[in-house]
């Protein structure tokens, strides 16, 4: 048998034995997981375990010491592994910083490859959408519908419309992400207002494409890589030096890609961009009392992809920003850093789990006198908003970007 034929034969045997070789990068994740000492601290912090119990979701420790040990058996973890919201709480409380969220993605990728029939149907739907549109949501087909929806939202939030700059020479790329592009358009518009207000030259992609996080989370490595390289190609074409985002997921995912593939392009959440690059002096001067709005009591929600997958400092910066806005009082929720249940694409196939997880946040929020919840992530915003509304609460939720845009004075 020739060498080429031999290799083909071997790969087909590996396929039959359900072995997809760990790459070098994946081996590092495996190395991280082997640090687990079975202490179980993660079990008492995992929001999914707390919400649905150990029989439904056996938790991060079980992923580390049991489920992730033998790749030929990964297929048999489908009833558990898709329930992880990827919030990263386990990794944060772990004395050995075991990288559970990433091993979960790796295991999901093996299930997708060898037993796609065991991947929840809801994830296949998202996958199809991404493959077809390069976006996590089916875009509104009619441009006019999209414009109409945008204008309604701007009116609702009392925001002016800023023209989108041409894809011209500018070193900063504002990347709204799928949610702000297709669903919560007010977030994208608010970001434009803010950047414009501080005279930041920026550009946007004409053909928005997904950052690849949903693909990565469902274990579709190929698509995640394809989307990342597509984004990189656009960055190169536009000669971008910096990416500013408003979505927590995009921030961490593009940041990871930039680090993994040596893009040398920093990725900043708008919050960080404002505090670090615009500066608090300028910010303080720019804030004003929104017309017709009274002193407002807010509480914040910390998006997992910021505090755990990027840096906790980002929420310190978010609080600093809120502190600069007149007549805003922040009340601290005891569940501020608990996963909203929207992570890990869990809501796409196990709504009951997602809802059980967010309950913790809802109960903590209800105990406060806060009138609004503010969070720097359009996905968390949507998840909290939907669930507060469904639970009959009158508390409203704002994306922090929108909240800030509403409170900026006019230029000059």
């Amino acid at each position: 048998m020739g060498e080429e034929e031999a290799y083909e034969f071997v790969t087909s045997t590996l396929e039959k034995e359900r072995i997809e070789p760990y790459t070098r990068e994946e081996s590092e994740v495996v190395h991280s997981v082997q640090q687990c000492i079975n202490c179980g601290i993660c079990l008492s912090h995992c929001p999914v375990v707390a919400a649905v119990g150990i029989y439904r979701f056996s938790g991060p420790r079980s992923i580390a010491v049991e489920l992730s040990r033998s790749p030929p058996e990964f297929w048999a973890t489908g009833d558990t592994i898709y329930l992880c919201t990827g919030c990263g709480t386990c990794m944060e409380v772990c004395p050995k910083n075991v990288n559970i969220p990433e091993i979960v993605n790796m295991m999901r990728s093996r299930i997708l490859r060898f037993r796609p029939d065991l991947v929840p149907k809801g994830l296949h739907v998202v996958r199809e959408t991404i493959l077809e549109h390069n976006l996590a949501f089916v875009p509104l087909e009619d441009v006019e519908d999209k414009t109409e929806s945008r204008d309604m939202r701007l009116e609702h939030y009392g925001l002016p419309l800023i023209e989108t700059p041409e894809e011209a020479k500018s070193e900063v790329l504002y990347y709204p992400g799928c949610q702000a592009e297709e669903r919560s358009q007010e977030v994208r518009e608010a970001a434009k207002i803010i950047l414009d207000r501080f005279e930041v030259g920026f550009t946007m992609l004409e053909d928005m494409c997904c950052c690849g996080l949903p693909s990565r989370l469902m274990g579709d490595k190929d698509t995640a890589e394809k989307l990342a390289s597509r984004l990189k190609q656009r960055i190169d074409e536009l000669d971008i030096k910096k990416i500013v985002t408003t979505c927590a997921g995009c921030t961490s995912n593009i940041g990871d890609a930039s680090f993994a593939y040596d893009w040398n392009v920093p990725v900043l959440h708008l919050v960080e961009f404002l505090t670090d690059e615009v500066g608090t002096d300028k910010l303080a001067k720019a804030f004003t009392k929104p017309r017709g709005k009274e002193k407002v009591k807010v509480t914040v929600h910390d998006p997992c992809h910021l505090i755990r997958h990027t840096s906790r400092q980002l929420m310190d910066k978010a609080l600093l920003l809120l502190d600069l806005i007149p007549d805003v009082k922040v009340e601290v929720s005891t569940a501020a850093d608990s996963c909203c249940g929207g992570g890990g694409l869990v809501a796409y196939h196990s709504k009951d789990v997602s809802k059980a997880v967010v309950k913790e946040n809802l109960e903590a929020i209800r105990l406060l006198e806060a009138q609004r919840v503010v969070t720097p992530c359009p996905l968390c915003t949507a998840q909290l908003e939907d669930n507060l509304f469904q639970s009959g609460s009158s508390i409203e939720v704002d994306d922090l970007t929108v909240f800030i845009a509403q409170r900026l004075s006019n230029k000059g």
Partner: protein
Amino acid sequence: MTKSDVVVVGGGSTGTAVARDCALRGLKTLMLERDDIASATVGTCAGMISSGLKYMDEPHIVDMCSQEVVHLNRIARHIVMKNPILTPMLELSDLSSGGSFAEEYSKRAAKREVPPVLFLTPEDSLKIEPKLNPNIIASMYFEEFFIDPFRLCMLQAIDAQRAGALIRTYCEVIDITVKDDSVDEVLFYDRVKGDIERVKTKTVVNAGGPWAPGIAKMAESNVEIRPNKGAHVILDRRVVNVGIIAKAVDGRMIYLFPHENTVLLGTTALDTWEDPDTLVASHDEIEYLLQSMEWVVPSIREARIIRTMAGVRPLVANWKVPEDKVTRGYETIDHEFEDVRGLFSFTGGKLVMCRHMAETVTDLVCEKLGVKHKCTTHEIPLPGMEADVDILAFSADYGISQHAVERLRARRGTEMTRVLELTRENPDWRTTICACEPVLEAEIRYSIREEFPQNLNDLRRRVRLGTGPCQGTFCTYKASAILMEELDLSGEGFKVDILDFLAERWKGKRQSFRREQLVQEEVTQGMYTCVANLDQSEIEYDPKPWEGSI
């Protein structure tokens, strides 16, 4: 006094295979094991049912091994796994020596339904195993089968029992009397009851492995073996994608084999005069294995070492040749030549041959007894192999996670339904006792009721309790409580059993302690000394020989 057609001494792979064969041929069979099933040599092997790759210059043995692999795949498919294996080559000389191996191997490959030896380019090899040394010049690929050695022995014992054999563990033979040049009676000490019993028998099969010479001596006979120590280092989880074979510092072949949810790095081969009961892997052996493997897998030291295990091979007594020149075949000794009729002993042998050895000796026993039944052990499946198991359906039906059900299947095949059935009446028994494996309470209860374990170590061999990275930290006390309840033991027994089990774990851990496992040990010590106060307890417990100060 009871009577028996045959007394089998030893409950390892060979002893249990002999007991099964004898029972299936209708002989009144008693098997005596001094400790537990698979508690010595076979319990420290890699589980490879080798096609004979290390002894290509003994073609008749390679033929036999290949045939036995076919048989084992027929009778025990549910506990057999296939491992793809790479042999990376760093020098041209490796390539030429590999060539002759490839030829011999390939001749018998089709029979076992595996491909002939294939040669891969360095680039392709690295795609399959990115951890390989990038300087390899080529690699050889072939496939071997592996079996769970504990379950194989257990299933052979249980099948023997079902065919009418008496299987007695913790029964140590203390004398074999010979009358009129024939074996007559076997005296044994029941270590659990504390009684001495005797059994009248016409034949005795000495399958004592490293203890075979001592057993023969009781019947005033002689068996000579060349005891050879083999040690393994056990790595947590599958850190390599496929099995790897490499040339060791002294030119021997060593391997890295995925096994269940671990990887085994082995093995050493040292002539030994140590007591097989207390021997442990030495620092030299651990370093020998690590350094040898480091040449082809440079990152091997980054893997987490859970523990080591060491055992003694009862090699055929070929002296004044290197260990690897000693035949890997086995010899059956009929002691009639020294005027002891009815006594048969084994020397040599490999795991893969255990059924073949049993067939050979059972033929001799039958001849002696005038029984004409033919051997069927290669045709009749072992318990649990009746059908394929629908994991998803069982998982949904019993409300137990798919992975737990799959692990249960890997150990028990179709017999797992009997474990699951216990959870119908006792839903609480779905509780996970050993988190690493996992092992559910129902399986522990089932094993205690059906598989005659006497202590936690026996349970470990039956259900893989405490074999994971935490080495019993979180399952020992839970499993112990269940064992006490099922066997109605005292509170003192509870503590002694915990200490025994932890001591046995310590035996393997101590030698290779480093990094992760040291951190893990802090947790273990914290649990059992700081929390459970076992070090201050007033129970009578003699520390094991390996527990002394080092």
